[in-house]
């Protein structure tokens, strides 16, 4: 389990590391003519992928009847949050250059950004309470209830992606279908558990 976690840690770090290496010129190709966009898009995309991966882990554990996928859940979720937070920070610091009127205007007036921010804010309490200490403090029931926020966050995240894409919807469509399948799997599983 330790080796598995270590391996996953390294893998989840790679997309970010690759950006650093490309940016420093150590790895080719570099970040291209519009590095800010490339960095922001890469971070958003990996944030979303890791978030959906996090949601895959429990169904995977039921399917395989093995506990190891669940052991990766917290780390996957935290990595997803880290990438999304960086995605947001790159947007605010580099893309908008901390132009506060522009930032607030975009958050209020651009629905795709509004739902991105909402999704990110939903993930904040989950990241904060991801520790054992918080699990104990909240109690299993309340902790689980709180962490159901991950579903609306994921729905908004996919929607956010769908909304800003131009014409080529193949990738966001794939994530939307995957997310729908994951939600159905959850419902089915709960039903089964109740029967």
């Amino acid at each position, binding site marked *: 389990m330790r080796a598995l976690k270590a391996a996953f840690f390294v893998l989840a770090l790679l997309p970010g590391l690759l950006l650093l290496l490309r940016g420093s010129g150590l790895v080719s*190709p570099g970040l*291209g*003519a*519009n*590095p*800010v*966009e490339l960095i922001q898009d890469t971070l958003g995309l990996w944030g979303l992928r890791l978030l959906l991966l996090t949601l895959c882990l429990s169904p995977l554990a039921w399917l395989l009847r093995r506990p190891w996928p669940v052991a990766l859940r917290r780390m996957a979720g935290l990595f997803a949050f880290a990438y999304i937070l960086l995605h947001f920070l790159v947007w605010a610091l*580099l*893309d*908008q*250059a901390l*132009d506060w009127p*522009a930032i607030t*205007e*975009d958050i209020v*007036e*651009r*629905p*795709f950004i509004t739902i991105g921010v909402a999704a990110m804010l939903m993930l904040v309490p989950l990241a904060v309470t991801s520790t054992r200490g918080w699990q104990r403090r909240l109690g299993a029931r309340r902790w689980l209830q709180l962490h159901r926020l991950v579903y609306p966050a994921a729905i908004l995240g996919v929607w956010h992606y769908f*909304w*800003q894409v*131009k*014409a*080529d919807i*193949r990738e966001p469509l794939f994530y939307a279908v995957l997310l729908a399948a994951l939600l159905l799997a959850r419902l089915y599983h709960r039903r089964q558990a109740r029967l």
Partner: protein
Amino acid sequence: MPVNTKNRILPSEITPPEVYFNRRLFMQAGLVAGAGLALPAAADAIPAAHRRLGELRPSPFSTDEAPNTFEEISTYNNFYEFGTGKSDPVRLSHRFNPRPWSVRVDGECDKGGDITLEDLLAPHPLEERIYRLRCVEAWSMVVPWVGFPLGDLLKRFEPNSRAKYVAFETVYRPEEMPGQRARIIDWPYVEGLRMDEAMHPLTILAVGIYGVELPNQNGAPLRLVVPWKYGFKSIKSIVRISFVEEEPPTSWSLSAPREYGFYANVNPEVDHPRWSQARERRIGAGFFAGRQPTLMFNGYAEDVASLYAGMDLQRQF
């Protein structure tokens, strides 16, 4: 028509040709920066394979803003025929062969027909036009195009009085253009201009950038450039020009009519439904440059605003 006629120098004049057209793939940017004041490091890395286009006339329409580098202009492209990623066109356009080329001219004109690229270009002296390019995605560049006024060409075909619009069509070659194998939009790509827009002296057909033939990914061998409109109006790899009476369909307004109109004039006050058009990111400005304000008609208002007098630009976007 007020035109800014400050005498301007061609980048190809201030930079010695052996520097401007370096045989080596990557040259020392510093050398160019030292040689050309209006052209800091811009003429770097023009691969030798790009054929040079003879003598170029300077144009009073050129901006004196510093052009983007050849590399920026030729590696960051929206050309969905080769893929939707910005680096797809440069990576996936090597199989595209723009020679031989001919253009079909038809519709409301007396002298239509098929015309070879050579015959099409022959009478027109080439000019260098350094224009701002504003993409609808809120980024911008400065590009030293090589071309000639579209109006000069259109007159040769003797359009008749029913010719109210000009429609353009991009080549359809899915075997050479991998992006066309997916139905992202309805191929072939089509665009159009109102006749007065097409005849405007700012509107050009381009055959090159930086004094060399257009790279495939920039719309070889022949493309439109309308600098006061969003980039998608400037249709690439043109194979057909039709004079028509009714407003012709255009690819992006067919694909998303709420988001893209026929006119697509750069306008900081009319936002894209999903993002602001008030500011733009200048490619190459650097990590911390942020965004700069977008200008009405992309800064060409003095020259073109009169074309739209009396129109409601909020509705006819």
